[in-house]
């Protein structure tokens, strides 16, 4: 994906939302309209393993700040969703006892949804959240497109912010020789990778090192490295003399990715095509059991690809709704159908092994992904129409 073709849509710099630890997050820029910035002060969220207490059910349009405290025992996430689960803002990977801040700009009044996700799975503990009034701004298509790209940027940033520490945990476990721990962390760390894979793949040199397969053709001198090399060590060969070195290299590459993602700007077309490509990945890599051929954790990746696709589509949703009001409800229905199907294969916080799937299971998954991929393939044409 070219980075040159972008930027023009972002000149307005309209939407700014920052997710992350308050200690590391850059300062929040005021929204373009500036009308109701910081109105009402921060809303507190008490997240527990079975509850999600939001201190106020509504806030005025503009910049809304949530202080999320995890009082439970599971790692949690907090989301603010718009229509079609469009992610307005989110904080991921909030460990027990930690407080993190979500600053999100919501220019349009309406009904939104808050959600805590203890254990980082499922739809989470949800509640309606009302945004009153409208922040002053122009809402022409270019503005919506700019907001869409900014929204997706928030999404990819939040995923990378979770990918780095999770991969670090995985790498640490490999280097410490904790095979069981490393095995359990492998599909979790990959989840954040798989959600944003098209973005990562846009850096041509980095993807083969992080996600290459043993039988890929490589440049002379390049070797089999990354997640799948460690997967093979953990599940098949046992840890090797150079496993620690491969793990260190993976971490270096992931941090490199993080630095590059901070600079990349995707166009609406790239986002839409990325959403489609993630489903193509499911069809060719996950449903076939090709990707995670040693660990058979393909369904984790399947889920993450679908979530990543939904993230990109949701960011584009206001533009889709403006151009073709019939498409959004179909997308909602088909995403929901795939997620419902995958839930049948859930085991605890994870999924059934690919090797335990029957031909009938695989056919059902193929049908659901076909059903979803057709409307998703229309998004690029619709947002550029």
């Amino acid at each position: 994906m070219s980075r040159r073709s972008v930027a023009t849509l972002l000149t307005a710099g309209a939407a700014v939302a920052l997710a992350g630890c308050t200690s590391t997050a850059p300062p929040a820029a005021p929204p373009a309209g500036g009308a109701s910035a910081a109105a009402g002060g921060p809303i507190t969220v008490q997240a527990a393993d079975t509850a999600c207490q939001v201190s106020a059910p509504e806030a005025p349009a503009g910049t809304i700040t949530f202080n999320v405290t995890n009082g439970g025992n599971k790692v949690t996430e907090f989301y603010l969703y718009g229509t079609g689960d469009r992610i307005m803002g989110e904080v991921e990977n909030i460990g027990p006892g930690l407080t993190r801040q979500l600053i999100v700009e919501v220019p349009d009044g309406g009904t939104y949804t808050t959600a805590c996700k203890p254990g980082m799975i499922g739809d989470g503990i949800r509640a309606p959240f009302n945004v009153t009034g409208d922040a002053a701004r122009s809402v022409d298509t270019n503005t919506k497109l700019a907001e869409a790209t900014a929204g997706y940027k928030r999404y990819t940033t939040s995923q990378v912010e979770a990918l780095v520490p999770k991969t670090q945990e995985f790498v640490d476990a490999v280097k410490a020789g904790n095979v069981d721990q490393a095995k359990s962390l492998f599909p979790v760390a990959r989840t954040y990778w798989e959600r944003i894979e098209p973005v990562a793949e846009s850096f041509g040199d980095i993807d083969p090192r992080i996600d290459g397969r043993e039988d890929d053709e490589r440049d002379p001198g390049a070797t089999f490295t990354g997640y799948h090399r460690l997967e093979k060590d953990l599940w098949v060969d046992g840890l090797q003399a150079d496993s620690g070195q491969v793990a260190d290299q993976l971490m270096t590459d992931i941090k490199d990715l993080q630095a590059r993602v901070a600079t990349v700007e995707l166009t609406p077309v790239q986002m839409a095509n990325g959403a489609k490509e993630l489903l193509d990945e499911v069809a060719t890599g996950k449903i076939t059991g090709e990707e995670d051929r040693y660990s058979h954790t393909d369904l984790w990746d399947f889920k993450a690809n679908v979530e990543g696709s939904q993230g990109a589509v949701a960011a584009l949703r206001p533009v889709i709704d403006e151009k073709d009001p019939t498409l959004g409800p179909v997308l909602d229905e088909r995403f929901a159908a795939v997620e419902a199907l995958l839930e049948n294969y859930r085991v605890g916080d994870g999924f059934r092994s690919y090797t335990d799937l029957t031909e009938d299971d695989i056919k059902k998954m193929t049908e659901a992904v076909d059903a979803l991929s057709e409307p998703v393939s229309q998004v690029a044409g619709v947002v550029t129409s």
Partner: protein
Amino acid sequence: MSGGISRRRLLGWTGAGAAVAGVGAVSGYTLGRSEPDVASPGYDIVDFRGTYQAGIATPSQNELYFTALDLTSTGKASVQRMLSQWTTAAERMTRGLETAENGALPRNPEAAPADTGETLDLPASSLTVTIGFGSTFFDKLGIPERRPAELADLPGFAGDRLEPARSGGDICIQACANDPQVAVHAVRNLVRIGFGTTAVRWAQLGYGRTSSTSTQQPTARNLFGFKDGTNNLKAEEPDLLDEHVWVQGGDGPDWMTGGTYLVARRIRMHIETWDRTSLNEQETVIGRTKGSGAPLGGTGEFEPANFAAIDANGTPVIPASSHVRLASAESLNGVKILRRGFNFVDGSDDRGHLNAGLFFICFVRNPHTQFVPMQRALAANDRLMDYIQHTGSAVFACPPGVAEGEYWGQRLLEDAV
């Protein structure tokens, strides 16, 4: 795009010359034969709308792509929407057009093409698209009271080895054309429109019609090398079609009046053993001569078989266990069927034998009084059964023709409350 010839433009300039082009193609194909083959490759357009669905009594084209689909959505509205979209797309395709205006080459290059494009330079090729509803369709949509009694399951027949993955289905699409690319394109695009509402259960590519459905067509040969379906019902016999094929008012539910029942059987042929069989044995098994197709003891293909004839030893000239005798109306109390069969070759099996045979399709007014007694007689006594095996089976209720402004199956779905 500017340099290419669009499918529409091609048709524009061939429109007037269509008949000429058709004749030209025909004369090449039928060189040395007495009858012209009206369904040879050409530019013919078969009307999509009419009293009856096209593709049933239409002179049989040479190529088939048949698919059976299962509903993945049981919402009536989504099925209606799909059938309506199918109708629009199919009608356009039968006229040699893309599924939608500028479908293959959308003006917006960021859009995925609505039409898959592989027929852009091809003529209509006599494409017909015919649909039918299986018994399970009515259960899944919650309208079992609309199901015709004629859709009751077929009984098992001796020697059947039916594979579930090649049998049944909620909806069928039969696409026939004189170009396989055109037939596959039609099904492929309807399947794509159906994603989310239907999913393919099984499909069969057929080539080389093994039945003539018009007196204008020569009888073709099946993969055993014999002329097949000589005594088939023909499009030129409207009274017989009313009697044996078209559902008449009062036969069953009103929505089926003018429709018909499609029975599909995938018949695997044991090619290698057949090929080692003597000519005499082959002719005895079939009951016809291999060369002319005349009934044994006769001289011309269309000469009526003399089932009473006995040879000097007092045995029937046309053996009691021969295919032609067992399948004849004379043996079956006057039962006739309209056949529309095609050869198939699905490559080789894992033992290196040709995975080939005949994809049998017939249209009947009632499967249980026409197809069932015929197949029961054949399965029990036909010596041909030593060389064939039925591996797939399905029955579908094909609704009547689509009137102007209607969509496929509208009379079934809109009267249903």
